[in-house]
């Protein structure tokens, strides 16, 4: 992720040490000076996100990374950055919570990331990679989406993704969008009127209402243009699993095992958590008999799945927080019990 950011032109990184993501600032501390960029080890998560606020307003591609308790501290700054419509990348390699929790992998920050953990009506574009290659690719795309929409982007990973090792092809950066000129940058008012980056809107009296409406229009546009999802063997699936990130990768294995046992299972894996890819779920709800949400929390992602499914299909749940993670066998067991229950129900009807 760090190298992808460098490749994509990220030239400012500020962060604070927290496990399990220390590999990122460590790498950046060495790499940034090599490419003429800036690395600052901030005195706090709050300072780090505010340095990003300043660096972004000064026109740099910039990022910070942290893990759950640290991201909670950053929420104030994230709200301001979203309000000021500044682009940046924030990575959260989630760990067990609440509180200090532990340093095992978790997906319990879904609400915070997707519904907005700071104050006010704002949205982050939230990306959930399931492999290091995808993390690499999405990191480069994230900077483009951030600039294109002038909106902060969050990569929502977890402790497993944050600390695993697997081969990654280092691809050169190519912009995926035609990016607008950064006409908001504060660089001194030479030859132009002074610019202001601010989030306090007192005048006119309905100015903040108008600004909120403008933000919501932007969010609607993002929702209509950006939605990524992987579907795996869903066409004929009776039981469709919904999972994201590393959990989806494990679930994919369980789907293969179920198929080997003659159970028609499939997988929907949202890659963008916001905007949430509703369409695959709406389609699957029509064809599948049951759905199963698997996540490393006590049920956050499931709420968006249920909203998308809208009662058209029963949705089962498998998940725990606190550092629990599912094995392929645990998921398979759940699929088998669902298949058996379904068979009994069908028999009952006959």
């Amino acid at each position, binding site marked *: 992720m760090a190298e992808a950011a460098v490749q994509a032109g990220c*030239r*400012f990184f*500020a962060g604070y040490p927290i496990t399990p993501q220390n590999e990122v600032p460590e790498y950046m501390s060495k790499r940034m000076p090599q490419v003429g960029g*800036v690395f*600052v080890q*901030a*005195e*706090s998560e*709050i*300072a*780090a996100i*505010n*340095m*990003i*606020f*300043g*660096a*972004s*307003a*000064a*026109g*740099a591609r*910039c990022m910070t990374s942290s893990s759950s308790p640290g991201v909670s501290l950053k929420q*104030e*700054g994230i709200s*301001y950055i979203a309000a000021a419509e500044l682009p940046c990348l924030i990575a959260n390699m989630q760990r067990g919570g609440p509180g200090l929790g532990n340093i095992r992998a978790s997906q319990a920050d879904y609400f915070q990331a997707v519904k907005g953990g700071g104050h006010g009506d704002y949205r982050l574009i939230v990306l959930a990679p399931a492999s290091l290659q995808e993390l690499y690719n999405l990191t480069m795309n994230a900077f483009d989406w951030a600039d294109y929409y002038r909106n902060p982007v969050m990569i929502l990973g977890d402790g497993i993704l944050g600390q695993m090792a697997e081969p990654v092809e280092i691809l050169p950066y190519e912009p995926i969008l035609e990016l607008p000129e950064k006409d908001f940058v*504060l*660089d*001194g*008012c*030479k*030859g132009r009127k*002074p*610019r*202001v*980056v*601010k*989030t*306090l809107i007192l005048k006119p009296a309905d100015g903040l209402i108008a600004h909120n409406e403008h933000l919501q229009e932007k969010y609607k546009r993002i929702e209509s243009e950006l939605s990524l999802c992987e579907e795996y063997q869903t066409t004929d699936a009776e039981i469709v699993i919904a999972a994201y990130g590393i959990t989806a990768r494990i679930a994919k294995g369980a789907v293969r095992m179920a198929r080997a046992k003659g159970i028609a299972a499939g997988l929907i894996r949202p890659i963008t958590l916001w905007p949430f890819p509703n369409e695959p779920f709406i389609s699957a709800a029509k064809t599948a008999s049951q759905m199963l949400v698997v996540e490393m929390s006590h049920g956050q992602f499931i709420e968006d799945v249920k909203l998308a499914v809208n009662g058209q299909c029963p949705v089962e749940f498998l998940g725990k927080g606190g550092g629990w993670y599912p094995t392929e066998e645990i998921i398979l067991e759940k699929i088998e019990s669902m298949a058996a229950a379904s068979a009994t129900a069908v028999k009952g009807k006959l």
Partner: protein
Amino acid sequence: MPNLTRTEVLTDAQTHYCPGCGHGIIHRLVAEVIDELGIREKTIGTAPVGCAVLLYDYFNCDIIECAHGRPPAVATGMKRVQPDKIVFTYQGDGDLAAIGTSETIHAANRGENITVIFVNNAIYGMTGGQMAPTTLTGMFSTTSQDGRGEHGEGPPLKVCELLSSLEGVCYLERTAVSTPKDVISAKRAIKKAFQNQIDGKGFSLVEVLSMCPTDWKLSTAKAVDFVNNEMKTAFPLGVYVDRS
């Protein structure tokens, strides 16, 4: 002999500050310094949360408005990305010495090449007169109604003294705007703090003791007396660090 008039660094807007408030004087000093150094077109200011939050309405240069207490961190981000620009923060006592103490200390210790204007009026003005970190011992506020120090509030925080132990700091001076002599001295200090940044010398902070007649519930004249008699005793004026 020069004519004393408004500089182009100030907009025409009438400020929202109360009658007799020192912010207006300090705004003018900062504007005059920017004008005299000829740096308006390369200056980026950071507005705090507090009475000076509307700074961007009054200054004719690029301004970023920050979350409460965060200007030194935001300024760090800006200055590191654009080292050739002049970045200043303008902060009150609540912003700089309470909620943003950490940002202040660490930006100072890193020796960030920025200029900090610290307005100390010993009270939370914008929110209606609550106790500030710099409220004097025995001083009344809406949240220290028996006088500071009676219920475990501790003594006032002295920013220049606190920061003077940091090796990363270039220049620290405490000034005031409660007499014409102090105003002239404050301008000299502010000019030096900006010049230090132009010369790449590092973190410079000028503390300015200022009047808040409204929340002190004093007349203009008594507010001036309060700065001259009480505040200057608790917060002695002078140069605390000068490594320039």
